[in-house]
């Protein structure tokens, strides 16, 4: 399954309802790390209905802000 946010990464099941009810599954994108539950509304789970502001399909993830940059190695 393609990620609903970056539209590129592969998403897989990372959790299921622990009570065995089958109530929901949680998916996670291996590329942008977006996580969502199958029972969330379509405004979150359907790329066509998601708020474009929160999409990462036109973003180079390597250019995201790094609040704490990696420091030089200490010799």
């Amino acid at each position, binding site marked *: 399954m393609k990620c609903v946010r970056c539209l590129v990464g592969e998403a897989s099941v*990372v959790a299921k309802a*622990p009570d065995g009810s089958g109530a*929901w599954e949680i998916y996670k994108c291996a*590329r942008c790390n977006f*996580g969502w*539950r199958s029972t*969330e509304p379509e*405004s979150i789970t359907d790329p066509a209905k998601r708020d474009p502001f929160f999409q990462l399909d036109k973003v180079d993830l390597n250019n995201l*802000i790094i609040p704490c940059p990696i420091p030089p190695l*200490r010799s």
Partner: protein
Amino acid sequence: MFKDLRSFLKKLEEEGQLVHYHDEVLPEPGIRAIMRGSADLGATGPAVLIHNIKGYKGRKLVVNVHGSWANHAIMLGMPKTASLKEQFFELERRWDKYPGEVKWVTGAPCQEVVLDSFNLLELLPMHKVNEHDGGFYLSKASVVSKDPDEPDNFDKENVGIYRLQVQDANTIAMQGLPFHDIAIQMRKAEAKNEPLPVAICLGVDPMLSFMASTPIAYDLSEYKYNSALTGIPMELTKTTDGFLDVPAGAEYVLEGEILPRVRVPEGPFGEFPGSYSGARQQVVIKVKRVTHRTDPIFENLYLGRPWTEIDTLLGLNTCIPIYKQIKETMPEVKAVNALYQHGLTAIIATDSRFGGYAKSVAFRAASTPHGISYVKNIILVDGDVDPFDLVQVMWAMSTRIRGPQDVIVIPSTPGMPLDPGSEPPGMGCKVIIDATTPVAPEPKMRDVKMVGHIPEAAAFQKIISDLHQKAGCRL
């Protein structure tokens, strides 16, 4: 006082400040709706223990524990009706009792169950705190870590609350900002290409959550402050590998390490200014072991458009350090109200030693450790104005400010990156609004005399209040 979350919840229930919700609720959007609704009850709202989350049968979640000033007062051992100003000065009094004693115990409750195999997204009743969050967050976790260069220095063992995105069974992305204490430790560990051990503590005693979100100096111990404020020795135990010190009564402890020199996408997350932060590249924690109490209670916090639990949790613990630091050299300062968005706006009541003095107080506030990045709007009022009473503050602003002399903007200062007004993130400004009355040698305002206080009124307030109640008022 309360040595763990459970004893606090018991007290809240006795005081009518904890309610149980037993109907089935979906993780999204049900849980955040309960969190938002309980926060909207305002200064007297209760904590809510949620018992029946769809898919998480048997798991318990408590929210809004610090969500009202009534609960905050109970945390301090005060009557739940204690005013904000009374709570401020009670905390201020206890602050000087630092350092308190800590003690170590074995066979701690937080290690009654030890798990080496787990899936955090199934073990904990996780939920989206806000609709457009990038995933499932721990929003009230106390993260414990040591200084890699001084692992035996207990005072530098840090306890801080940082946002944590649980990304899969054992992976968590964490936001530590450059001015956070843990960033010092991350930098040292990464410079040596070493992992930084961490313990993520969930459901701790209420004063530890309070201290973990307090901006204190790097070499001051949150645990010792906790003991000083509660008056009872903080009970700690060692993590199962014997390295870190964790609260013995925590509901859950996630033991792991920050991987060196790795960053992964994290976010967005609805943050304390009431806005979403963007997606970021953040550090990664791998969780290796989970310990928890029998029948554990997961605690999480709502934050979003104010007023929410985080505004109460970060309220007085933002005010007190700024007040204490200014007061050291400026005894004329009477109180500091920095309740608004972790101190982005602060109101300071001060007498003026000489003309222009209040503006010097503002400079001092802006250069305190927390003030450097956070304190943006600084409103100064006279010492006889209660800064926690916004009616009085608005009166002072309405009647004292002379625009050209009293409103100053200092551009290009450090800013708080999560403030939407910080552009680029991390840069900001200082806005000083001096609503104090000028004193010599500054020229006086027009020759006006303010109406004074009426000291006889307090007695009549009580008499009239009693008459009001007898007349049928049920307030």
